[in-house]
């Protein structure tokens, strides 16, 4: 394995959790709900998946537990913002703080434990192609799943009736309600989907990326996923691009630091963030017109009855 190959492989691993979490948040936001609790749901996903995987010695159970934890957190959020029409910004921030604290508690007995790496899916023959072979055809299942998920989310939003309903509700919930579209039901499922994705992203972090648990290990990735949705102008394809740019910058700056160019390491650590902003800004400029957020994003829905 050459150094280039190794770098490319780590880029994929760094990008995948961002992509999964951002896709979930994208669907939630397209339905008109802003969930700032991604970081908290991700942390819960990481802690619960790691705890379950170690306890039952099963990656599968770990992943399921991570997704369940994210979903439960999202259900709590849905209760607040749909059931009580609470302020979404406040509720989301509270969810993040709760998630970070609670994950520390759940993960505490498992600090120091380690999991074995997950065997990558080895597609015979294709994976023997030099350089790109291993990059494209010998990744773990999650990587392929995240790409498939991007395509599915895109198709769902733009090509299905139910996706059209979801976009309409996010665009203008008053009109949608007047037309008889089920605003609450659609938003509820969209929030749960976002939670499940954040939980899955957390599980990937704990079980594949680091393979151990430490408190606060999400390290702001939930916030980056949130930012990716905005910079990607609520488009799944651009989320994919953004996630990989960010992942690449994260890995490359580590190598740059190791190579000791004489640039302050703090500045290099900031490179991924700058790169993401720059690349996605360029994308949005090239697209011609700025793309607005879903019209009802963040606005509590209270029908007059």
């Amino acid at each position, binding site marked *: 394995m050459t150094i280039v190959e190794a770098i490319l492989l780590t880029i994929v691993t760094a990008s995948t959790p961002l992509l999964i979490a951002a896709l979930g948040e994208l669907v939630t936001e397209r339905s008109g709900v802003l969930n700032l609790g991604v970081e908290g749901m991700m942390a819960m996903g990481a802690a619960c998946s790691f705890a379950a995987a170690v306890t039952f010695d099963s990656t599968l159970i770990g992943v399921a537990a991570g997704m369940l934890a994210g979903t439960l957190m999202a259900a709590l959020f849905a209760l607040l913002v749909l059931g009580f029409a609470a302020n979404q910004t406040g509720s989301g921030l509270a969810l993040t703080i709760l998630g970070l604290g609670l994950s520390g508690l759940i993960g505490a007995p498992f600090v120091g434990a380690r999991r074995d790496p997950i065997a990558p899916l080895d597609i015979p023959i294709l994976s023997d192609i030099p350089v790109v072979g291993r990059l494209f055809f010998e990744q773990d299942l999650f990587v392929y799943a995240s790409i498939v998920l991007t395509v599915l989310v895109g198709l769902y939003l733009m090509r299905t*009736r139910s996706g*059209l*309903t979801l*976009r*309409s509700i996010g*665009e*203008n919930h*008053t*009109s*949608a*309600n*007047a*037309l*008889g*579209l089920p605003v609450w039901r659609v938003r509820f499922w969209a929030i749960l989907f976002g939670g499940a994705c954040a939980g899955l992203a957390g599980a990937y972090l704990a079980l594949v990326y680091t393979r151990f648990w430490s408190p606060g290990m999400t390290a702001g990735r939930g916030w980056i996923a949130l930012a990716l949705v905005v910079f990607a102008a609520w488009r799944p394809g651009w989320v994919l691009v953004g996630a990989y740019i960010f992942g690449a910058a994260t890995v490359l700056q580590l190598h740059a630091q190791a190579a000791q160019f004489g640039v302050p390491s703090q500045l290099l650590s900031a490179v991924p963030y700058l790169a993401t902003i720059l690349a996605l800004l360029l994308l949005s400029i090239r697209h011609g*017109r*700025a793309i*607005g957020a*879903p*019209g009802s994003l963040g606005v509590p829905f209270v029908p*007059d*009855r």
Partner: protein
Amino acid sequence: MKADVPPSGAPLVELKGISKRYGDLLANDGIDLSIEPGEIHALLGENGAGKSTLVKILYGVIEPSAGEIRWEGRPVSIGSPVEARALGLGMVFQHFSLFDELSVAENIAVALSDEWNLSTVRSKLGEISSTYGLALNADRAVWTLSAGERQRIEIVRCLLQNPRLLILDEPTSVLTPQESEHLFTTLDRLSAEGCSILYISHKLEEVRRLCRRATILRAGRVVATIDPRAKSAREIAALMVGNEVGEVRTDAPHHPEGEILRVANLSMPPAGLHGQALRDINLVARAGEVVGIAGVAGNGQSELFAALSGERPADRADAVVIAGKASGIMGIDARRRLGAAFVPEERLGHAAAPSHRLSENTLISHAAAEVSRSGFILVNAAKRLARSIVQSFDVRTPEGDPQARKLSGGNLQKFVIGREIIRKPKLIIVDQPTWGVDAGAARLIRQALVDLARAGSAVVVVSQDLDELFEVADRMAVIHHGSLSPLRPIGEWTREAVGLEMLGVAQAHGGAHAV
């Protein structure tokens, strides 16, 4: 639903004793109404009379506190818009229920049942468009369309569901006269095909043009069911308002004097994504006259207002001259100090701070001398000023010094206009002075503007309501796509000429209609 034969002679829909209570307010009070098959039935009333509440009940958006709805003689309960549509009701909303970022076809598909998809919608759209003359491009995004086109989407959306009863809520409020006439032709045709129509409006002329029966609501009650063609407009207005509405007196001698406002070759790029550029605008307002600016919403009215008020300064000072002073690059307050006053379209949040009391709201435009000193608010002076505005302009307030948001739309509008007029400005520019205001308040506001002009101020009224402009303006121009037509004395304008200018086709026809 329609399997059985209806009892012969039963009306298509019958409302009996419908009431809706919001707290202490009875929005609907024992309303009876029946609509025959194929009938165009008008529902008339002022703002706040309970028209919108009643149709929302009929369409299942809100539930009534009491009363019964009968469909073809059988009692039904309409719990949601979906049930209403299944029954055969279609509704065209006053504030369009469209999704700006979606395409025309998507907007239609989202409201239809599951057996429709985008391609079936597209093909059926073409069919309906040509049958009823409702031209629409399926793939355009809604935000790029005119109000008339948006309304067509709503109508087509209803027609695709083969409605038995079509409800239209103030459909012409955003249309040009030509677009309105086009709509009436479509409605006549639908009615001839047996579709009933409930037509909600406060414009008497069009009700007389379309309907043989009209139910008039006042303060939540039915006051009369009449044949609108058998009564004069004045009689109907009296039924709607409850007492006779006087006309605005404009007969005082009109001797315009010196120039107060001059706009010279004002051009501006659009402010944002959905904005309109201003193109080479020229305009003069003299002391003692009311200048009217007509146009369909979204043709640059708000941009022009922002340029005149200084909310968005121009790039050169002499583009806007107020009282002889080149003020194109001045801010709002500097222009106010020259004697100008401004009333923007949006009363809550733009003309007034919603959660501030009326006395505090006087500070927005009276910051200068009388209500503050060295940066401190003169609380009592502000309260006195608010009280005198409330008294002079008949503002009905729930308490002594309420928060602005507690006032009804009409009363708040009287307050914000009164706040400016009471300063006796040399120049006042008002955007949509009576939008969504009931007839009584509208008359008071128009009279106050005319009186101010006759007392020697220059008044500029930007309005979508042509009747209003014909009533108050001495000279008028039409704005279309950010260009302003020449100002002409009001007597030289006809409705047709205004309509052609609104559509931007006056030049193409040689402009002969207006001269």
